[in-house]
């Protein structure tokens, strides 16, 4: 996984609530085979907002404006990434070059998926975010420093933010959670052995052969 330390660049303000996973990446497109074409996912990202009914670009959509095309940071309002669990939503944003989303709140599953894919989700308060969006509207760059947990607004104002320390480390070092998980397999098997005694009905599934 690509590590995240410092990201600097324009921050595109998309100040609408409930930007859902079907907007980030339509479910009916998830037939695009993986892992073959992650890169192509970017084409469908934000589809319903980004394109007009005839398939041409919607000029009023923020990421279609020259100053925000390829912006690595996105600013949003409440409940960003609500909806589906599909990780395609995060992959599609990454394919567009987005590394960090700053919002008032996030959909829980999307929030978790971000950390698995080198994407930093930051929660900021309503007022701070709106003033940040105003500053960022010019296209002047914003800097996000995960090392120091400080972001610097386009006008140079420092704003501190919080990230779960374990998740922060995961991003800073580009750690893969599965590697860590695999090292815990003995611990997990031991838990299952004990648990099987107290909750045998979980493990003894009628008609399904146990591998252990």
């Amino acid at each position: 996984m690509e590590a995240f330390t410092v990201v600097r660049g324009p921050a595109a303000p998309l100040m609408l609530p409930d930007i859902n996973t079907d907007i980030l990446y339509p479910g009916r497109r998830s037939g695009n085979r993986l892992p073959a074409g992650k890169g192509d996912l970017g084409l469908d990202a934000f589809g319903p907002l980004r394109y007009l009914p005839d398939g041409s670009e919607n000029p009023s959509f923020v990421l279609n404006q020259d100053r925000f095309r390829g912006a690595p940071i996105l600013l949003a309002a409440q409940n960003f990434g609500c909806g589906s669990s599909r990780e395609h939503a995060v992959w599609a944003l990454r394919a567009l070059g987005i590394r960090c989303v700053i919002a008032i709140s996030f959909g829980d599953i999307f929030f978790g998926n971000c950390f698995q894919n080198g994407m930093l989700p930051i929660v900021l308060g309503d007022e701070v975010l709106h003033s940040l969006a105003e500053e960022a509207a010019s296209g002047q760059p914003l800097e996000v420093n995960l090392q120091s947990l400080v972001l610097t607004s386009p006008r140079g104002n420092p704003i501190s933010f919080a990230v779960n320390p374990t998740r922060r480390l995961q991003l800073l070092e580009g750690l893969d959670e599965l590697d860590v998980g695999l090292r815990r397999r003995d611990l997990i098997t031991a838990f299952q052995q004990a648990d099987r005694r107290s909750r045998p009905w979980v493990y003894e599934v009628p008609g399904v052969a146990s591998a252990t």
Partner: protein
Amino acid sequence: MGGRTLIDKIWDEHVIAELEDGLDLLHVDRHLVTDVTSPGAFATLSKRSVEVLTPELTFGSPEHSVTILAGRTEDSNPMSRDFVPLMRRNFAEHGLTLFDIDSPDQGIVHVIGPELGLTLPGTTVVCGDSHTCTNGGLGALGFGIGTTELAHVLATQSLVQRRPSMMRITFTGRLAPRVEPKDLILSTISRLGADAGAGRAIEFAGPVIEELAAEQRMTICNLAVELGAKIGLIAPDDITFEYVESRRYAPKGELFETAIEYWRGLVSDADAVFDREEVIDAGIVGPQITWGTSPAHSIPLDGRVPDPASAPDRTTQGQWAQALEYMDVEPGQSLDGLPIQWVFIGSCTNARLSDLETAAAVIRGRTVSPNVRALVVPGSSAVKRAAEAKGLDDIFTDAGFEWGEPGCGLCPGLGGVTLEPGERCVSTSNRNFMGRQGAGVRTHLAGAATAALSAIEGSIADVRRG
């Protein structure tokens, strides 16, 4: 120490290890797998030569990619031609239990999980699908996961999770006649907002919930995620135990007795503390229809589309304006009588036998409007057989509905059926997001009875009239 909530009790039972920073390593009791979100995870396993740790706890069925029209095979559409054989290979390679496209047990995983007795009270159930919270209707702690997490579950039968904060929604009063659980939960989302449950797990409680049948409870929990919560569940009780007993994969005999004894303890303590509590009078809820592009955009059938000027804040105002434009409706408009082109009765929200019975009761002896294409898609093969045994299929097809094959179908804009931009669909599914059922398609969420009557009338209809 104060009392524990129902969710705390289930959570605590599954903690393998407390990790740093408030994260827990949580055991997964049941892993349900779908066709579309799992291939990346199996590819990860192959790349690293990792085996599935506990294959006997993993079950799956192709549901998203499959065509839902009669006579379907896996070759009926390009997506299922890719995903169904791929799923079959992955499951065979790891020795997992698959309910394949031609199996008598095939279906939407959140329908077959409970139906086959895989989903049990007090278990953790995960799936690469956000509506895994549906399983909470039986008192299971179910939640959706991404593909990377899916690989983690396959390889370790566990997940690293942060314990959510606790929310309880208590429904008092009594549902009015012709008002469905779907109406109740849509109305609740509209009242509390699509992010009311963000970062939280929701317990649904109160006299209204206690009286609901197990299938109806699943509909309530299904929409917990549309409140922003990964988890929604209901304390298991005798209604639950009766539902679970004698299901194929449920524990039998002495094991079942042991389980019930344990399950009876799965209630929130009287002194349990919730971070947020809401009490809602169910008696004032009428049949609902959504006007906009979020499940929170729901109004009673006799209500009016709201004016963005009355939105609670600036960003919501912008969203409402955008939704009005997308849906081509006006502030102050009544939706009753608005012409539609499609009706979809199906999905993990409302495609169980009781939902089909509700819809059939409305349409019996009547005819679908010539302007509407109407589909009924049972949630599973078992639901389909049970409905056919009761003659529901004849009631639907005589009325002019198409009687489909089990799958997610039109809910996420799949199933081998294409809706055109600008078309309007009354759908019993769970999301009316922009473009979800097809580019430019306008989705109005509703309960089964409302959808059925709307198909007959050719326009959005109030079941209290019909």
